[in-house]
């Protein structure tokens, strides 16, 4: 395959990926920092480079509703949003998943109001974590682009049929210029293939009703099916990631590890902060410290068994959450990672850091402090505070 390397922002990379996928329908409403994605896409539409039906709806609630209608009609449908936009579509986000519509949505992560803020944290997608959508998080523009293309295959897989959110950090990734290797158009076209929905509206041979009332008679069974689809999504994510890797040289799994095998302490984190952590690890390794990283890509489905296996040899682990869950204990990634390790005969000590809310910068010194704290925990054999806040004025 011929590929080319360009300088793109995360939003440009996503828009370019969408162009190569050439979905049947895109409906969206502008919101910072996502706006550019659909704005760039509207120029592709105007220039006749895509066949997409592009709908400038009046709100995110209508954007999601329109792509639900389109997907029910048998179309490959996409949208993109951030923060308040995702919150505003919340009602129908659940409906997309329960109707098993393989919609793909890019989310440029941005803090939720209030107070109103436009910068990065994960409170928006964490708020939708139990909506039944698959969630893939991206470290950089390259991963955002690669995740988007794979998302189509994962969502539409007959064992899955669930919508997918492709998450990229607002501004940090959406607006920063990076080098991105693009696949050629023909490859993407072939990789995503032609979408053949199992059921869709107005298929005269198989008439259907979508989303009817479902009470105590069958609601529970349908929810059980949804849970099963999410469980099966794990193998599909792995298989699609491997196939993509074989063809592009950029393989993907449920998570990526960095210097983890012989590490004594490690950080678990998602998205762009993983890049910062890698740079800190390089420095600390040069000083002889055995530190490592696990960067989670698939938060939904949550790969609990694989995580336990990957982290079991460690002495202490810090899980970094870019969202709080205001439950008076730990944040979402921490609580789940810690639960995943519960069945291990010997568990690492685990602590949680909530960091970077509302776009607060998380620099190398903060990450270095986390590794220093972990070293102290190992040395003293004292856990101390389990849930901590990083980089906040107390």
């Amino acid at each position, binding site marked *: 395959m011929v590929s080319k390397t360009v300088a793109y922002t995360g939003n440009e990379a996503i828009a370019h990926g969408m162009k190569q996928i050439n979905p049947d329908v895109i409906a969206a*409403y*502008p919101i910072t920092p996502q706006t550019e994605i659909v704005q760039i896409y509207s120029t592709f539409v*105007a220039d006749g480079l895509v066949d997409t039906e592009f709908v400038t709806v009046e*709100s995110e609630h209508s954007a999601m509703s329109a792509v639900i209608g389109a997907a029910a009609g048998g179309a490959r449908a996409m949208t993109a949003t951030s923060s308040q936009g995702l919150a505003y579509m919340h009602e129908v986000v659940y409906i997309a998943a329960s109707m098993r519509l393989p919609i793909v949505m890019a989310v440029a992560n941005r803090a939720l109001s209030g107070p109103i803020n436009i910068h990065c944290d994960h409170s928006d997608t964490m708020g939708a974590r139990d909506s039944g959508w698959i969630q893939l998080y991206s470290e950089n523009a390259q991963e955002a682009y690669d995740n988007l293309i794979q998302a189509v295959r994962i969502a539409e897989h007959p064992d899955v049929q669930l919508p997918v959110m492709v998450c990229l950090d607002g501004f940090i990734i959406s607006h920063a210029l990076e080098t991105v290797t693009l696949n050629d158009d023909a490859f993407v076209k072939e990789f995503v293939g032609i979408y053949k929905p199992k059921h869709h509206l107005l298929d005269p041979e198989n008439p259907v009703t979508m989303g009817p009332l479902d009470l105590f008679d069958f609601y529970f069974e349908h929810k059980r099916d949804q849970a099963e689809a999410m469980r099966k999504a794990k193998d599909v994510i792995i298989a699609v990631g491997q196939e993509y890797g074989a063809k592009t040289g950029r393989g993907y799994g449920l998570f990526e590890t960095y210097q983890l095998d012989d590490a004594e302490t490690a950080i678990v984190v998602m998205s762009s902060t993983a890049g910062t952590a890698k740079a800190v690890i390089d420095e600390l390794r040069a000083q002889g410290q055995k530190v490592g990283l696990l960067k989670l890509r698939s938060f939904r489905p949550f790969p609990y068994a694989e995580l336990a296996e990957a982290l079991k040899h460690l002495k202490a682990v810090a899980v970094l959450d870019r969202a709080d869950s205001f439950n008076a204990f730990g944040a979402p990634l921490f609580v789940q990672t810690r639960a995943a390790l519960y069945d291990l005969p010997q568990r690492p000590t685990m602590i949680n850091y909530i960091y970077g809310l509302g776009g607060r910068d998380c620099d190398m010194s903060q990450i270095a402090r986390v590794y220093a704290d972990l070293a102290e925990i190992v040395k003293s054999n004292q856990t101390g505070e389990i849930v901590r806040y990083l980089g906040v004025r107390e």
Partner: protein
Amino acid sequence: MSAGRERLVAGYPESLTEQAFHYCPGCTHGIAHRLVAEALDALGLRERTIGVASVGCSVFAYNYFNCDMQQAAHGRAPAVATGIKRVLPDAVVFTYQGDGDLASIGTAEIVHAAARGENITVIFINNTNYGMTGGQMAPTTLIGQKTTTTPLGRVAENNGYPIRMAEMLATLDGPAYIARVSLHNAQAVVQAGRSIKKAFQAQLERAGFSMVEVLSTCPTNWGMTPVKALEHLEKVVAEYYRVGVLVDRTKEVAG
């Protein structure tokens, strides 16, 4: 001029803070702010007024209006204002909303606040696009107008037709006063100021819902100089959105 005949014809409104506006050069949001402040001053309402800021370029309105302010989520200002007014009926409550906020994502809230005849005043800034997010098409965008999501111009077939909010709300029985004004020249600005004052008077009379649609410029996203933008406002925008009073059920007229 002899000393005895001197009179102050203009000053800095008390209802504005001294904070400099962040608006782009030539943007008429600043003029609209000043007109609202002058109306509050003229009626002596500053100490009783609560403003509801919306989401859009005027998101920082709370920095400029020298009264209590609350920030609402995108489109929800009329509902928030309803809540405020119901618990503080003696307060003067106004919202300040753009056309993305009011005519797009907040269409339901404005229609129902008007239909209920909520005794609030709405200042609706129609600049025919979503300014803050970078000039995308709004429901108010004119046919043929180029925006960042309609780079070749709005086409009715794909993007539908512009909405005349003032006319649409005027079909309801709840509104006491609805007018459309423009800010394209000094004369129009004076007229706009009168309408805004009248809208607040309607609220003081407890006559019901009042709204002034203010045709406004967005030189940055229209890709025009400030002067050209004012010309465009007068010759093109105000041609489609005709200025005038659409509803007046206030006592002054009725009586």
